[in-house]
């Protein structure tokens, strides 16, 4: 079972003796145990982000492996003046994009592809939380890859616009534009397919 540090900071990053600050220099020197600890520390988070970007858990596992293999290869080049977390996210985004390009899936799912029957649950009481999660992931597929990445990094992972721009190698203005479209589109989709979730919003 993966060992998880019990103490974490605001974002859920482990804090304590076995943090990235101590593990990275050891892993850079070729300490496999230290690298294993880094893998155990971040695998859930990497998997979750990869899942959001590539759309399913099986592919997310492949991307996660690729992320850690790249991490192993590029770790000796890591500059300690940079933030490890931002650097790791950059690897995740790149690995996911490479995977999507390889699979020829670097595009959006047309709205017609989202079948109406999947969203015909008009009774909110019967709609389980788990089902909603699954459907939200399907709605995310209707966004472009860049919009989805911006949304995941900014809204879900809580990076600032500037950090998101850095991870995506883009400008803050472009990221704001992607974010604006992503949020507006998600609202539109949610309103169309899950009107009951947005019901009750009155003045």
């Amino acid at each position, binding site marked *: 079972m993966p060992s998880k540090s019990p103490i974490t900071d605001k974002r859920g990053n482990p804090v304590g003796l076995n943090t990235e600050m101590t593990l990275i220099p050891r892993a850079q020197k070729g300490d496999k145990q230290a690298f294993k600890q880094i893998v155990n520390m971040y695998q859930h988070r990497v*998997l979750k982000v990869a899942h959001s970007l590539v759309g399913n858990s099986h592919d*997310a596992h492949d991307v996660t492996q690729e992320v850690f293999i*790249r991490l192993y290869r590029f770790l000796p080049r890591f500059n300690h003046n940079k933030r490890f977390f931002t650097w790791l996210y950059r690897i995740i985004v790149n690995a996911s994009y490479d995977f999507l390009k390889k699979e020829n899936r670097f595009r959006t799912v047309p709205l017609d592809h989202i079948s109406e029957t999947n969203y015909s649950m008009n009774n909110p009481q019967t709609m389980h939380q788990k089902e909603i999660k699954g459907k939200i992931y399907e709605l995310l597929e209707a966004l472009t890859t860049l919009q989805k990445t911006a949304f995941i990094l900014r809204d879900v992972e809580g990076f600032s616009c500037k950090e998101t721009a850095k991870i995506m190698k883009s400008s803050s203005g472009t990221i*704001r534009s992607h974010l604006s479209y992503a*949020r507006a589109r*998600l*609202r539109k989709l949610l309103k169309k397919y899950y009107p009951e*979730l947005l019901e009750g*919003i009155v003045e």
Partner: protein
Amino acid sequence: MKCRHIKKYLPLYSGDDLNPVMFWLIRQHLKKCPSCRIDLKELQQTQQITTEAIRSHNIQINNHGIWNEIVYRLSHNTIIKTKSKNKNISFWHKLVPGLIGLVILVIIVFVTEQSGIKKPAVDQAMHNGDPVPVVEDVTDPHVTVMTFKTNDPKITIVWFFKDNPQS
């Protein structure tokens, strides 16, 4: 500002991604516009639902764990090669265009030397100081005119031959 302008900025307002001036302008508008307030609430609700759903979604890691897969792939060298800033590659990237340029330059010089851009024989002969015969076209087919140029451009020797220049 009109509602249609404000609505464009609402997705950024809901995520607190606007500059302070725009933020203030929209806040002022929202105070007096119930329609935009509903739009904003819907946006905030959407954002809340989606982010919570994604954050709380737990994905089960394979039983054998990711570490074993990584170790297997590292030991069997099944790594997808990616573009990297390899020092040797960057050296070759610099060297190859230089070599190509050099080869092209050599070819140009060689072709120029071999083609007619060489010094004409007359000029060469003049350079040596010998008079050079030049056969000129004359309308009479039985007459041949040969002009001998000398080192002095003012002096030209002209010979006329009838039928056979050797005679």
